[in-house]
Protein backbone atom coordinates (compact mmCIF):
# COMPACT_ATOMS: atom_id res chain seq x y z
CA UNK A 1 0.00 0.00 0.00
CA UNK A 2 1.48 3.42 -0.94
CA UNK A 3 2.73 5.61 1.91
CA UNK A 4 0.35 8.45 0.96
CA UNK A 5 -2.68 6.20 1.42
CA UNK A 6 -1.40 4.98 4.82
CA UNK A 7 -0.78 8.55 5.98
CA UNK A 8 -4.16 9.69 4.73
CA UNK A 9 -5.88 6.71 6.34
CA UNK A 10 -4.25 7.50 9.67
CA UNK A 11 -5.36 11.15 9.46
CA UNK A 12 -8.87 10.07 8.48
CA UNK A 13 -8.99 7.63 11.39
CA UNK A 14 -8.03 10.53 13.67
CA UNK A 15 -10.83 12.53 12.07
CA UNK A 16 -13.30 9.73 12.70
CA UNK A 17 -12.28 9.62 16.36
CA UNK A 18 -12.87 13.35 16.63
CA UNK A 19 -16.31 12.90 15.02
CA UNK A 20 -17.14 10.23 17.60
CA UNK A 21 -15.86 12.51 20.37
CA UNK A 22 -18.02 15.36 19.06
CA UNK A 23 -21.10 13.15 18.87
CA UNK A 24 -20.46 11.99 22.43
CA UNK A 25 -19.99 15.59 23.62
CA UNK A 26 -23.24 16.58 21.84
CA UNK A 27 -25.14 13.79 23.59
CA UNK A 28 -23.56 14.57 26.96
CA UNK A 29 -24.17 18.30 26.38
CA UNK A 30 -27.82 17.61 25.64
CA UNK A 31 -28.17 15.47 28.78
CA UNK A 32 -26.47 18.08 30.98
CA UNK A 33 -28.65 20.84 29.46
CA UNK A 34 -31.75 18.78 30.25
CA UNK A 35 -30.55 18.31 33.84
CA UNK A 36 -29.94 22.05 34.24
CA UNK A 37 -33.43 22.86 32.92
CA UNK A 38 -34.92 20.31 35.31
CA UNK A 39 -33.00 21.97 38.15
CA UNK A 40 -34.49 25.39 37.26
CA UNK A 41 -37.96 23.85 37.22
CA UNK A 42 -37.39 22.15 40.57
CA UNK A 43 -36.73 25.50 42.21
CA UNK A 44 -39.31 27.77 40.57
CA UNK A 45 -38.28 31.41 40.34
CA UNK A 46 -41.33 32.81 42.08
CA UNK A 47 -40.54 30.62 45.09
CA UNK A 48 -36.97 31.91 44.99
CA UNK A 49 -37.92 35.58 44.69
CA UNK A 50 -40.59 35.31 47.37
CA UNK A 51 -38.22 33.66 49.81
CA UNK A 52 -37.11 36.94 51.54
CA UNK A 53 -33.68 35.35 51.69
CA UNK A 54 -31.29 37.24 49.46
CA UNK A 55 -28.63 34.53 49.75
CA UNK A 56 -31.13 32.06 48.31
CA UNK A 57 -31.91 34.46 45.45
CA UNK A 58 -28.18 34.91 44.75
CA UNK A 59 -27.51 31.18 45.04
CA UNK A 60 -30.14 30.46 42.41
CA UNK A 61 -28.49 32.92 40.02
CA UNK A 62 -24.98 31.66 40.72
CA UNK A 63 -25.55 27.92 40.93
CA UNK A 64 -28.61 27.23 38.78
CA UNK A 65 -28.84 29.98 36.13
CA UNK A 66 -25.04 30.44 36.12
CA UNK A 67 -24.58 26.79 35.12
CA UNK A 68 -25.83 27.35 31.58
CA UNK A 69 -23.20 28.19 29.01
CA UNK A 70 -23.44 30.87 26.34
CA UNK A 71 -23.85 28.30 23.55
CA UNK A 72 -26.92 26.84 25.29
CA UNK A 73 -28.31 30.32 25.99
CA UNK A 74 -27.87 31.51 22.40
CA UNK A 75 -29.05 28.39 20.60
CA UNK A 76 -31.77 26.84 22.79
CA UNK A 77 -35.01 28.80 23.10
CA UNK A 78 -36.06 26.96 26.30
CA UNK A 79 -32.81 27.92 28.03
CA UNK A 80 -32.91 31.55 26.85
CA UNK A 81 -36.55 31.86 27.92
CA UNK A 82 -35.78 30.44 31.38
CA UNK A 83 -32.73 32.68 31.88
CA UNK A 84 -34.41 35.83 30.51
CA UNK A 85 -37.54 35.36 32.63
CA UNK A 86 -35.48 34.94 35.79
CA UNK A 87 -33.24 37.90 34.99
CA UNK A 88 -36.22 40.15 34.27
CA UNK A 89 -37.82 39.18 37.59
CA UNK A 90 -34.52 39.58 39.41
CA UNK A 91 -33.98 43.01 37.86
CA UNK A 92 -37.45 44.09 39.07
CA UNK A 93 -36.74 42.59 42.49
CA UNK A 94 -33.31 44.20 42.91
CA UNK A 95 -33.81 47.38 40.82
CA UNK A 96 -31.15 49.06 38.69
CA UNK A 97 -28.58 51.64 39.87
CA UNK A 98 -30.47 54.44 38.07
CA UNK A 99 -33.89 53.48 39.49
CA UNK A 100 -32.69 53.18 43.09
CA UNK A 101 -30.63 56.38 42.91
CA UNK A 102 -33.67 58.26 41.63
CA UNK A 103 -35.84 56.91 44.47
CA UNK A 104 -33.21 58.00 47.01
CA UNK A 105 -33.12 61.53 45.52
CA UNK A 106 -36.93 61.73 45.57
CA UNK A 107 -37.50 60.83 49.25
CA UNK A 108 -35.32 63.64 50.65
CA UNK A 109 -35.56 64.11 54.43
CA UNK A 110 -37.75 61.54 56.20
CA UNK A 111 -40.90 62.79 57.98
CA UNK A 112 -40.64 63.05 61.81
CA UNK A 113 -42.19 60.19 63.72
CA UNK A 114 -42.78 59.06 67.27
CA UNK A 115 -41.25 55.66 67.84
CA UNK A 116 -43.55 53.28 69.65
CA UNK A 117 -41.96 51.32 72.55
CA UNK A 118 -43.71 48.14 71.42
CA UNK A 119 -43.86 46.66 67.97
CA UNK A 120 -45.93 43.95 66.31
CA UNK A 121 -44.27 40.55 65.73
CA UNK A 122 -43.35 41.20 62.06
CA UNK A 123 -41.55 44.46 62.86
CA UNK A 124 -39.99 43.06 66.02
CA UNK A 125 -38.33 40.19 64.15
CA UNK A 126 -36.94 42.66 61.57
CA UNK A 127 -35.49 44.83 64.37
CA UNK A 128 -33.90 41.77 65.98
CA UNK A 129 -32.34 40.79 62.65
CA UNK A 130 -30.97 44.33 62.17
CA UNK A 131 -29.51 44.26 65.69
CA UNK A 132 -27.72 41.02 64.84
CA UNK A 133 -26.12 42.70 61.82
CA UNK A 134 -28.26 41.02 59.14
CA UNK A 135 -29.37 44.35 57.64
CA UNK A 136 -29.52 43.13 54.04
CA UNK A 137 -31.89 40.25 54.69
CA UNK A 138 -33.83 42.12 57.38
CA UNK A 139 -34.78 44.91 54.97
CA UNK A 140 -35.75 42.37 52.28
CA UNK A 141 -38.06 40.82 54.87
CA UNK A 142 -39.44 44.24 55.82
CA UNK A 143 -40.22 45.13 52.20
CA UNK A 144 -41.97 41.79 51.75
CA UNK A 145 -43.99 42.42 54.94
CA UNK A 146 -45.12 45.84 53.62
CA UNK A 147 -45.87 44.37 50.18
CA UNK A 148 -48.09 41.63 51.64
CA UNK A 149 -49.99 44.15 53.79
CA UNK A 150 -50.56 46.47 50.81
CA UNK A 151 -51.66 43.57 48.60
CA UNK A 152 -54.18 42.44 51.22
CA UNK A 153 -55.46 46.00 51.50
CA UNK A 154 -55.90 46.24 47.72
CA UNK A 155 -57.73 42.91 47.73
CA UNK A 156 -60.00 44.05 50.56
CA UNK A 157 -60.85 47.16 48.53
CA UNK A 158 -61.73 45.00 45.52
CA UNK A 159 -58.75 46.19 43.47
CA UNK A 160 -57.75 43.54 40.94
CA UNK A 161 -54.01 43.19 40.31
CA UNK A 162 -53.20 41.76 36.89
CA UNK A 163 -49.61 40.84 37.71
CA UNK A 164 -47.43 40.53 40.81
CA UNK A 165 -46.68 44.15 41.71
CA UNK A 166 -43.81 45.65 43.69
CA UNK A 167 -44.34 47.33 47.06
CA UNK A 168 -43.58 50.76 45.52
CA UNK A 169 -46.09 50.28 42.71
CA UNK A 170 -48.80 49.11 45.14
CA UNK A 171 -48.16 52.07 47.43
CA UNK A 172 -48.47 54.65 44.61
CA UNK A 173 -51.56 52.94 43.21
CA UNK A 174 -53.29 52.88 46.63
CA UNK A 175 -52.52 56.58 47.17
CA UNK A 176 -53.90 57.50 43.74
CA UNK A 177 -57.11 55.62 44.55
CA UNK A 178 -57.25 57.38 47.93
CA UNK A 179 -57.18 54.07 49.79
CA UNK A 180 -54.30 55.14 52.04
CA UNK A 181 -53.72 58.46 53.83
CA UNK A 182 -50.85 60.72 52.78
CA UNK A 183 -48.98 60.49 56.10
CA UNK A 184 -48.96 56.66 55.94
CA UNK A 185 -47.82 56.93 52.34
CA UNK A 186 -44.83 59.12 53.30
CA UNK A 187 -43.75 56.73 56.06
CA UNK A 188 -44.06 53.64 53.90
CA UNK A 189 -42.44 55.33 50.89
CA UNK A 190 -39.40 56.14 53.03
CA UNK A 191 -39.24 52.59 54.41
CA UNK A 192 -39.57 51.00 50.96
CA UNK A 193 -36.88 53.27 49.47
CA UNK A 194 -34.37 52.32 52.17
CA UNK A 195 -35.29 48.64 51.69
CA UNK A 196 -34.75 49.00 47.92
CA UNK A 197 -31.43 50.72 48.56
CA UNK A 198 -30.26 47.82 50.74
CA UNK A 199 -31.60 45.05 48.50
CA UNK A 200 -29.90 46.63 45.48
CA UNK A 201 -26.64 46.29 47.39
CA UNK A 202 -25.98 49.92 48.34
CA UNK A 203 -24.63 50.60 51.82
CA UNK A 204 -27.30 51.04 54.53
CA UNK A 205 -26.12 51.48 58.11
CA UNK A 206 -27.84 50.13 61.20
CA UNK A 207 -29.32 53.53 62.18
CA UNK A 208 -30.83 54.00 58.73
CA UNK A 209 -32.20 50.45 58.73
CA UNK A 210 -33.81 50.93 62.16
CA UNK A 211 -35.29 54.26 61.11
CA UNK A 212 -36.80 52.65 58.00
CA UNK A 213 -38.29 49.90 60.16
CA UNK A 214 -39.80 52.46 62.57
CA UNK A 215 -41.28 54.33 59.61
CA UNK A 216 -42.75 51.09 58.29
CA UNK A 217 -44.22 50.39 61.74
CA UNK A 218 -45.79 53.86 61.97
CA UNK A 219 -47.05 53.67 58.36
CA UNK A 220 -48.62 50.25 58.86
CA UNK A 221 -50.25 51.38 62.15
CA UNK A 222 -51.71 54.39 60.35
CA UNK A 223 -53.15 52.06 57.73
CA UNK A 224 -54.84 50.00 60.43
CA UNK A 225 -56.16 53.09 62.18
CA UNK A 226 -57.55 54.73 59.01
CA UNK A 227 -61.33 55.09 58.76
CA UNK A 228 -62.78 52.32 56.54
Amino acid sequence: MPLAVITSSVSIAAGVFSVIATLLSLILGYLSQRDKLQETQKQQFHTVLESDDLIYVGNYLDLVIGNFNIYEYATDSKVSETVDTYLEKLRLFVGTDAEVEQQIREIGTPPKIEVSPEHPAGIDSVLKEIASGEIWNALARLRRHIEITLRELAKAKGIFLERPSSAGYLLNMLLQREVIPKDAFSNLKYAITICNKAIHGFEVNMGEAKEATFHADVGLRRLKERPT
Partner: protein
Amino acid sequence: MRELSIKDLLDLVVAEVPDAATRIQKMFEWHFERVKVISQWILGATASLFIYILVAFFKADLELEAWQIILIVLFALCTSTYGIYLLWQLRSLNRQFIAALKLFYEFKKIRPFLIRYREEIK
Protein backbone atom coordinates in the same frame (compact mmCIF):
# COMPACT_ATOMS: atom_id res chain seq x y z
CA MET B 1 -19.01 28.78 23.01
CA ARG B 2 -19.45 26.00 25.52
CA GLU B 3 -16.42 27.04 27.55
CA LEU B 4 -18.01 30.35 28.60
CA SER B 5 -20.73 29.96 31.25
CA ILE B 6 -23.17 32.55 32.57
CA LYS B 7 -21.35 32.28 35.91
CA ASP B 8 -18.12 33.39 34.20
CA LEU B 9 -19.93 36.55 33.06
CA LEU B 10 -21.15 37.13 36.63
CA ASP B 11 -17.53 36.79 37.83
CA LEU B 12 -16.40 39.32 35.21
CA VAL B 13 -19.02 41.83 36.38
CA VAL B 14 -18.22 41.37 40.08
CA ALA B 15 -14.46 41.61 39.52
CA GLU B 16 -15.02 44.81 37.48
CA VAL B 17 -12.43 43.74 34.93
CA PRO B 18 -11.40 46.83 32.93
CA ASP B 19 -12.58 46.78 29.32
CA ALA B 20 -14.41 43.48 29.88
CA ALA B 21 -16.51 43.79 26.71
CA THR B 22 -13.32 43.95 24.58
CA ARG B 23 -11.96 40.91 26.42
CA ILE B 24 -15.15 38.98 25.69
CA GLN B 25 -14.81 39.98 22.03
CA LYS B 26 -11.18 38.76 22.00
CA MET B 27 -12.25 35.41 23.49
CA PHE B 28 -14.79 34.95 20.71
CA GLU B 29 -12.25 35.97 18.06
CA TRP B 30 -9.75 33.36 19.35
CA HIS B 31 -12.48 30.73 19.44
CA PHE B 32 -13.54 31.65 15.89
CA GLU B 33 -9.97 31.40 14.58
CA ARG B 34 -9.36 28.09 16.32
CA VAL B 35 -12.50 26.40 15.00
CA LYS B 36 -11.90 27.87 11.52
CA VAL B 37 -8.33 26.52 11.37
CA ILE B 38 -9.38 23.03 12.59
CA SER B 39 -12.18 22.83 10.04
CA GLN B 40 -9.81 24.01 7.29
CA TRP B 41 -7.28 21.32 8.20
CA ILE B 42 -9.94 18.63 8.18
CA LEU B 43 -11.49 19.74 4.89
CA GLY B 44 -8.02 20.17 3.34
CA ALA B 45 -6.94 16.67 4.39
CA THR B 46 -10.08 15.03 3.05
CA ALA B 47 -9.94 17.04 -0.20
CA SER B 48 -6.33 15.99 -0.83
CA LEU B 49 -7.24 12.35 -0.19
CA PHE B 50 -10.17 12.54 -2.63
CA ILE B 51 -7.89 14.11 -5.24
CA TYR B 52 -5.24 11.42 -4.67
CA ILE B 53 -7.78 8.63 -5.14
CA LEU B 54 -9.31 10.25 -8.22
CA VAL B 55 -5.94 10.88 -9.91
CA ALA B 56 -4.76 7.35 -9.13
CA PHE B 57 -8.06 5.93 -10.36
CA PHE B 58 -7.90 7.73 -13.71
CA LYS B 59 -4.24 6.87 -14.19
CA ALA B 60 -5.26 3.28 -13.44
CA ASP B 61 -2.36 2.74 -11.00
CA LEU B 62 -4.48 2.37 -7.89
CA GLU B 63 -3.36 -0.81 -6.13
CA LEU B 64 -6.27 -1.04 -3.72
CA GLU B 65 -9.14 -3.45 -3.42
CA ALA B 66 -12.64 -2.05 -4.06
CA TRP B 67 -13.63 -2.42 -0.39
CA GLN B 68 -10.55 -0.48 0.68
CA ILE B 69 -11.43 2.37 -1.67
CA ILE B 70 -15.03 2.41 -0.41
CA LEU B 71 -13.80 2.43 3.18
CA ILE B 72 -11.42 5.33 2.56
CA VAL B 73 -14.11 7.30 0.70
CA LEU B 74 -16.58 6.67 3.54
CA PHE B 75 -14.07 7.80 6.17
CA ALA B 76 -13.22 10.85 4.10
CA LEU B 77 -16.92 11.71 3.72
CA CYS B 78 -17.44 11.29 7.44
CA THR B 79 -14.48 13.52 8.27
CA SER B 80 -15.45 16.18 5.74
CA THR B 81 -18.96 16.21 7.28
CA TYR B 82 -17.31 16.96 10.62
CA GLY B 83 -15.34 19.81 9.01
CA ILE B 84 -18.55 21.22 7.52
CA TYR B 85 -20.29 20.83 10.90
CA LEU B 86 -17.55 22.90 12.53
CA LEU B 87 -17.96 25.61 9.88
CA TRP B 88 -21.72 25.53 10.38
CA GLN B 89 -21.18 25.95 14.14
CA LEU B 90 -19.29 29.16 13.44
CA ARG B 91 -22.49 30.64 12.03
CA SER B 92 -24.03 30.81 15.52
CA LEU B 93 -20.93 32.42 17.03
CA ASN B 94 -22.07 35.97 16.22
CA ARG B 95 -25.36 35.24 17.99
CA GLN B 96 -23.45 33.82 20.98
CA PHE B 97 -21.24 36.91 21.12
CA ILE B 98 -24.23 39.26 21.14
CA ALA B 99 -25.94 37.08 23.78
CA ALA B 100 -22.83 37.20 25.99
CA LEU B 101 -22.63 41.00 25.70
CA LYS B 102 -26.36 41.36 26.41
CA LEU B 103 -26.08 39.25 29.58
CA PHE B 104 -22.92 41.08 30.65
CA TYR B 105 -24.70 44.47 30.49
CA GLU B 106 -27.80 43.04 32.22
CA PHE B 107 -25.61 41.84 35.10
CA LYS B 108 -23.87 45.21 35.29
CA LYS B 109 -27.23 46.81 36.16
CA ILE B 110 -27.43 44.69 39.32
CA ARG B 111 -23.70 44.73 40.14
CA PRO B 112 -24.06 46.07 43.74
CA PHE B 113 -26.44 43.18 44.52
CA LEU B 114 -23.98 40.65 43.07
CA ILE B 115 -21.08 42.12 45.06
CA ARG B 116 -23.12 42.11 48.28
CA TYR B 117 -24.21 38.51 47.67
CA ARG B 118 -20.63 37.37 47.07
CA GLU B 119 -19.50 39.16 50.25
CA GLU B 120 -22.26 37.50 52.27
CA ILE B 121 -21.39 33.97 51.14
CA LYS B 122 -17.65 34.37 51.79
